[in-house]
């Protein structure tokens, strides 16, 4: 019975590592999801809403996701990171959608490992891959217009 309970706890913890949310993101909360006792290092990437792009002032951003697929793709990216950097033990990715003001956090990626070697490479890969394949879009809204932006 205790075993069953702990398996359920473990499952819900793992699911919580990947999340698309409309709520503000706390980086501390995301890091706190990494609970593997063997970890000795955590690296985080925090993506925030930039106030100026190409010399133009952004009023706010609108993020939109295909949530069911985005969670699946983020899980796939987490699996890719662990397959390429086998020292990485946990991967948490939380992406916010909806209306975001300048300076607010849009994404937090947190990786844990026993040691720090190569973790920055793994983190770099994770954010590049998210921008490449995660079905998430952002619309920049200016005083005199708006546009969906992609780096592709």
């Amino acid at each position: 019975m205790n075993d069953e309970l702990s398996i359920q706890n473990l499952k819900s913890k793992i699911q919580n590592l990947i999340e698309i949310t409309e709520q503000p993101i706390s980086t501390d909360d995301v890091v706190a999801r990494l609970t593997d006792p063997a970890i000795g290092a955590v690296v985080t990437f925090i993506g925030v809403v930039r106030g100026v792009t190409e010399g133009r002032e952004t009023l706010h951003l609108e993020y939109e996701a295909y949530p069911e697929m985005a969670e699946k793709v983020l899980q796939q990216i987490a699996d890719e990171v662990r397959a390429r950097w086998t020292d990485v033990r946990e991967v948490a990715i939380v992406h916010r959608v909806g209306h975001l003001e300048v300076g607010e956090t849009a994404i937090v990626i947190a990786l844990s490992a026993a040691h720090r070697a190569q973790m920055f490479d793994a983190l770099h890969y994770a954010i590049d891959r998210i921008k490449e394949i995660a079905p998430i879009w952002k619309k920049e809204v200016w005083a005199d217009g708006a546009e969906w932006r992609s780096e592709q």
Partner: protein
Amino acid sequence: MHVNVRFFAVSREMVGAERQMYTLPEDATLQDLQHQLFAAYPALEAQRVRFAVNLTYAPLTTVLHEGDEVACIPPVGGG
């Protein structure tokens, strides 16, 4: 055969809907659906859209089935 098509971001704005039902002949492919979509909404063709079938990116040769969920995915920009 009926498939449920979902639209996001710029494609949602061009189509003016989040979802539409499309009727296709049996054994139709994603290419056939794309043809219908571009005929109905010519502006979509310039958007370099990709498609997903049942939550996975899929090539245009993919054969569709009754009840499939197809998503029209314009260039992404998360993070």
